């Protein structure tokens, strides 16, 4: 079973239609501005992807932390783990 990081990379590539192999995305590579060069609309796509494929929501309460959560595959994986652990 692929690690959560690997799954996230695959879903990033497929939902955003990126022309890059999932393996080519380093866990700590910046996703926005530098690195992959994603933008604000892509951030919303990622939020939708998290909801559909990992069943976690980026809520209003998280809005102060959006940048941190979405910064890299590593931070996304941490967020997903945190949210999934909190579920009953």
């Amino acid at each position, binding site marked *: 079973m692929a690690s959560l990081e690997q799954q996230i990379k695959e879903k990033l590539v497929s939902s955003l239609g990126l022309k890059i192999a999932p393996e080519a995305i380093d866990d700590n590579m910046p996703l926005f501005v530098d690195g992959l060069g994603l*933008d*604000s*609309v892509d951030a*919303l796509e990622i939020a*939708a992807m998290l909801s559909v494929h990992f069943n976690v929501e980026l809520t209003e309460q998280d809005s102060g932390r959006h940048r941190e959560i979405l910064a890299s595959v590593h931070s996304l994986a941490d967020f997903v783990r945190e949210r999934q652990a909190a579920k009953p």
Partner: protein
Amino acid sequence: MSSRPRVVVTGMGIVSAVGWTLDDTWQAMVQGRSGLGTLTLFESQRCGKLPVGEVAGDPALRSGLDGGSRSDHLAVWAAKQAFADCGLDGSDFARERGSVVLGALTGGMLFTEEFFLRLLREDRADASHLAERACCNAADRVAEIFGLGGFRTTLSNACASGGAALSLGCDLIEAGEADVVLAGGVDSLGRIVLNGFNSLMLVSPDGCRPFDAGRKGMSVGEGAGVLVLESEAHARARGARVRAWLAGRGNTCDAHHVSAPEPEGRGLYEAMRLALADADLAAAAIDYINAHGTGTMDNDPAEAKALRALFGDALPAVSSTKRFFGHTLAAAGAIEAIVTVLALERQAIPPNLGLRSVDAKIPLAPVAEYRPAKLAVAMSTSLGFGGNNSALVLRRPEALGESA
């Protein structure tokens, strides 16, 4: 200045969430009555509670059009009003020199949605309305009804389409390509467009509040606005009543981002500057601006910066009227141009409905209440996805005599 023909507005027709006529629209402004309400056109789990500018009453029952999309019905209704208003009805003008230019985004989007709902859920392909999906159908229907055989097109510049259509109407008249242009815009609500804006987190749960400190986004609306444009000479020759002088326009593109406006409003500034230059007027001549003012976090400050840059401390009265009918997308530029002409005619500023206190970071003081005012020159602005900016300068008709 140049010897190009001056373009005047001789007729107008409108429909939106605040009503089916020009008078209904203005009455809503006078009374400060928003047309935003609950979505009834279709079901939506996520968007069902968002206030929308839905037209009340069935456009299909009022257009007199046999078949067609919701957008077609709205456009035909507005065009019929405008045509009757300008007095060309039953008149003998060269219809092959009559043009139709409409801005449109959604067209028959509801039909596309229904087609795929059936296809994906029932495994059935129902062709019954496929031919009515195209966004160019509205302009075609309008042209057919009035027998207008001249230049015809549909502009799809996102939310700046309406303004661009009016600008193109001026181009056609100035180039001698048309004598009469029915120019405007139309759009209707749909699942794609409502969920689309909502997925971008741009839609307010309590209705748009342009420039307000507590604004939470836009409200999606629908409607149609059609204006009849002619050269001044053509209008005078047939004794037409002139409603306004479309004295200048400017169009630019930010080339900054696919959906967000350039934060300093540079593209809009340039569009307004071009419109003023086109009208041969200084910024100080503007008495009122009908702003785009969608109520989103990004649009309002960018627009305010552009206004400040152009007008400095001498800002004219400003209001955004979007809380009345919502953001009517491709119709917005035309609907709001009509509101601006009404303001010039009735000598009053329509209020920036929904404003409680201006965002401290927004250097504007929009007019919050309906206010009689001496207005001679006004400007209407529209911004759209893809960084399109459109600005129009409108003047009262007596200015034509003064600056002959």
